[in-house]
């Protein structure tokens, strides 16, 4: 896996569904680097990504596009800077069940700010069927306060059509840039 391979980057809060989203569209079962969660995340999920998830799609001309999922936890931030090299754009997934989903969004917008400025980003909020607040309007308020606007939707990362919808939005933004 070349660090310069063209790729889409999936990032976001732990347990938001990054690995699941990649699995929904990858042409092979993603390579995952999950280990047992030992910190406070253990109460939320059994395993967590410590390096990256890797999936792939192959285009008609044989070119491969990587689907890279970053570890969600902030202590693996050093991996984010490595993984974004060669990135076409960013998909941010936010778990609405977490204590501060709006704060989570700002973390990823801040930490990927340069990459987003060079490419673009879309945002998917998961688990809104389980936890309805904050609402989509609340997320747009955060973006508005930051002077930003991105495609932002409520999605189910397990559903292929939802993940493809996010990618469609990202591709449209990249095409019209």
């Amino acid at each position, binding site marked *: 896996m070349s660090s310069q391979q063209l790729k889409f980057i999936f990032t976001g809060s732990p347990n938001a569904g990054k690995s699941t989203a990649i699995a929904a569209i990858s042409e092979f079962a993603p390579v995952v680097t999950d280990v047992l969660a030992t910190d406070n995340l253990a109460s939320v999920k059994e395993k967590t990504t410590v390096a990256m998830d890797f999936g792939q799609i192959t285009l008609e001309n044989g070119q491969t596009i990587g689907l890279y999922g970053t570890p969600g936890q902030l202590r693996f931030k050093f991996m984010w800077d490595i993984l974004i090299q060669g990135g076409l754009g960013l998909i941010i997934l936010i778990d609405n069940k977490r204590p501060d989903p709006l704060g989570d969004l700002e973390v990823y917008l801040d930490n990927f700010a340069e990459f987003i400025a060079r490419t673009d980003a879309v945002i998917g909020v998961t688990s809104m069927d389980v936890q309805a607040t904050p609402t989509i309007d609340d997320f747009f308020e955060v973006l508005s306060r930051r002077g930003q606007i991105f*495609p932002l939707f409520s999605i189910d990362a397990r559903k292929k059509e939802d993940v*493809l919808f996010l990618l469609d939005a990202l591709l449209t933004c990249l095409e*019209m840039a």
Partner: protein
Amino acid sequence: MTDKLRLATRYVSPRHLATFSIFLNFTRKHSVPWDHTDVLKAADAILIDIDVSDGRVLLNALAAQKGRQALIAYGDNQEYGDHPADFPLEVLHLHKPPNSGSFLRVLEQAARRCAVEHPSGHTAAAPASSLLDLLVRNPDKIVAVSGAESYIAVFDKKRRCFYRDEAMTDIHGLLLAGPGAHGHIGEIDRERLDEVAGCLIREALDPPVWSAMLSVSNGNLYADLPLDGFYKLRHWPSLYALGFQPSYMRLATALRRGCTLHMLADVAQEPIASVIDFVNACFALDYLEPVAVPVQGATPASAGASEKQSPAVAQKASGLFSRIRRRLGI
């Protein structure tokens, strides 16, 4: 044509008045700017602080007169007067503390109440007076349609939802019907909504408002939206729920950075009528920032990105994205 509109204020503190003066300066570049006046009779709109008891009395009195002036209730006092349930829907509302975005939006609504002719001479084919029109003009109000014995439907635009009686299945028709066609229409407060919501079915408001506006738009700009205005998204349309079309994604993306309608049609490669329909629907759902007059030489949405890619790189990227789309089937 009116070259300037006048705003009078009553019972507003000196501090807030100073803030409003700054906000009024923002309208200098508008097609019809606003100015402040101390003379109530000369005002086109009157802003009254309703957190002051005398202010509430004045507002009630002016509302009862049903004069030509647009009335703006400024504050958060829920008790507008002795009879809050009878308070006219046509009174605009501005919350405290003041911010330029909401202030300018209220002024836009007030300007429409004053029936300002569009500067380009374009006479927008306003939709027939309808419940939809009422909801668009009163985004902060909870509007209830009541039958003989109970509520038929209640619309909470701020929270993007509505509540309906089990028997009411044609919300689209209800939105497009004349205000009195299906029962009495009035405003209720949130406390009353909380009391009755349990007996009604809650649904998302965006899809029916979106489809209703599209069905009456017919390529004509809604009300007094300016044909030469600068339109910009502040809230991405919930395209998944609204009935996705590829053109909508392109239009929303182009509106991200803001542009005029003709620029939008050019960038998104859509007919101007389709662009207008989309903008009308976005406006109806508060997806747009307050419409401004374009700055001379405003560039279309795509211009900024020339900083990101050279034409050769852009063409190569375009081919790559097309191949990705074909591979993913999108």
